[in-house]
């Protein structure tokens, strides 16, 4: 009734390999894309730059982590460290006078190299032990960043990012920053959408499901694991660089601490492993909802005339953030993407086919 389909049924290979199996999903994507393009003219610039822009960049980063965790099935708790490598590499390159286009690519490649080091852990262990190793590597990276003045200027120092300029245009306006973030996010999304119908994507899924079964099928799991880590690290590096260039304007080691790694992983898992629309929703939930709840609490306490301790208010977002992770995992362990799919599938056949369940 709500959809013109009555379920997803494929009659030929072309329909099976479509990016959007349900036309309504495609329409939704086109609508979101148009909204994203028009956003600077609709959304007030405060919301544009403090909510939409970080949302888009973190989505790009979360999609990168989704590639290695959701598609290739390798746990990664050191993602922020890889983002830091990209951010610092491109800012140093840009400060050196290299044009930003190349500086971003240099950042991405530097991240790829360091990120592939994480892959060597993945070649030896998996699951929990991989998570612990990458966590330890994150701590090592934190330590290196705070103890090497040549890169970061020391533990409490920050590094100014030079003015962003792409294709010969200096980008200084809010709208300009927004479009840069939007363009990067769209690029990563298109890449990820197409990934699942390429040989690479199928190989990664094979490695995730059973690596020795993949090996029997002739998929070199060694090669594909390193490839997955390198690709996701490239995305991480460019996202980290853009985050600093368009949002923070200053790079400091604390922006890429272990808590950030956990946050990105939370975004991916709350969104749903291997789900692209889920990544968008997961990032929105983790990034924006704690702040909104905090605003609601402080607003309602003021209107009710209650005094809430400043310290309490400062820690409510953290408690909400943790509670969100727990609640989403309890409701649907496969995340918001799966929840969206469930609702869509339910509505697709509504009001028929309800008695069978």
């Amino acid at each position, binding site marked *: 009734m709500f959809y013109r389909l009555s379920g997803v049924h494929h009659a030929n290979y072309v329909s099976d390999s479509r990016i959007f199996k349900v036309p309504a999903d495609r329409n939704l994507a086109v609508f979101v894309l148009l909204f994203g393009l028009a956003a600077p003219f609709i959304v007030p610039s405060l919301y544009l730059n403090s909510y939409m822009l970080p949302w888009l960049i973190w989505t790009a980063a979360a999609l990168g982590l989704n590639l290695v965790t959701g598609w290739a099935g390798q746990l990664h708790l050191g993602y922020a460290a890889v983002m830091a490598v990209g951010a610092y590499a491109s800012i140093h390159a840009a400060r050196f006078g290299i044009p930003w286009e190349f500086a971003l690519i240099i950042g991405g490649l530097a991240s790829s190299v360091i990120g592939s080091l994480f892959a060597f852990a993945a070649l030896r262990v998996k699951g929990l032990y991989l998570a612990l190793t990458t*966590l330890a590597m994150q701590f090592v990276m934190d*330590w290196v960043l705070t103890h090497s003045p040549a890169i970061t200027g020391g533990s409490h120092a920050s590094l100014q990012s030079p003015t962003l300029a792409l294709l010969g245009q200096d980008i200084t306006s809010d709208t300009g920053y927004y479009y840069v973030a939007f363009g990067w996010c769209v690029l990563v999304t298109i890449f990820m959408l197409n990934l699942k119908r390429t040989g690479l994507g199928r190989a990664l899924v094979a490695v995730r499901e059973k690596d020795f079964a993949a090996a029997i099928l002739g998929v070199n799991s060694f090669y594909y694991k390193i490839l997955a880590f390198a690709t996701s690290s490239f995305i991480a590096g460019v996202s980290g660089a853009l985050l600093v260039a368009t949002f923070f304007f200053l790079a400091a080691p604390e922006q890429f601490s272990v808590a950030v790694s956990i946050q990105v992983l939370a975004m991916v898992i709350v969104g749903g*492993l291997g789900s692209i629309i889920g990544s968008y929703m997961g990032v929105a939930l983790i990034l924006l909802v704690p702040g909104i709840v905090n605003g609601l609490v402080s607003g309602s306490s003021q209107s009710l005339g209650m005094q809430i301790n400043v310290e309490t208010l400062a820690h409510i977002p953290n408690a909400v953030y943790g509670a969100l992770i727990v609640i989403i995992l309890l409701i649907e362990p496969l995340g918001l993407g799966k929840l969206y799919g469930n609702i869509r599938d339910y509505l697709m056949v509504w009001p028929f086919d309800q008695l069978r369940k």
Partner: protein
Amino acid sequence: MDWIFLSELAINGALTGLLYSLFAIGLVLIYKASSVPNLAQAGLTMVGAYVVLALARDLGLPLWLAIPIGAVLMFGLGFGIERVALRRLAGRPVVMILMMTLGLDIFLRGTTLAIWGGTSRSMELGVSYEPLFLGDIFLSRIHVVGAAVAIALFVAFMLFFRTRTGIKLRAIADDYMASWSVGISVERGVGLSWALASVVAMAAGVIWGEIQGVDQALSLLLLKGLTVAVLGGLDSILGAVVAGILLGIIENVGADFLDPIVGGGSRELIVAAVLILTVMIRPHGLFGRHDIERV
């Protein structure tokens, strides 16, 4: 090399290490029973310290009463967390369980700080700050007390695992399917292990709170506790104790050598390096079972 200085470093390291073991025993208890890596242990430690502090300070109870009441509350909390959050995720991939414990950790820390505030408070156990002398070696009293608590808990658990309930827990750790089929309530066993781990977390919280003050820095113990647990083997309590002593010595002596070279703060680096090397060379740790999955 000054041997007295070196042995002072080693002994103090071992005492600090036993305090890490105190933290790691909680991790091991839960991992043994349910193969859940409990990254929320740091959050539980913080909650434990704050609960005891709230009972002692805000309600004005004496410490000898506040600690047992705190233990009962933590026992209930651990049971509740397992019942509400972890039981429904049983059998799910490890990534979701890891995320659940991370989420719990963030939630527990955020709630604790929202209720009691983030300013550091002291535990005031009444242990004097006068150093203890062992020949020419200085020892900190509270570290000795903490190490004694760790060893006492270790002995208590060794004895506990010989009781009827303890044998049930060991059976669950061995093979939960088989335990189920002979009528052992696996759910209750796993819940009990969470409850015990929460009580251990409270003990760790009280001791560490006395040493470094009760604030959110208590959650920084996670990396060290994890390293101790992995080095000892995630399912061995004896391993946690031995590995704690080992890590404490390596950390203290190593930091003394490395700090002048790299300019301070090398403890974290040493701990992280020990964790990485353990996982790379011997993932099942010193005393763990060998069935760890390798690629």
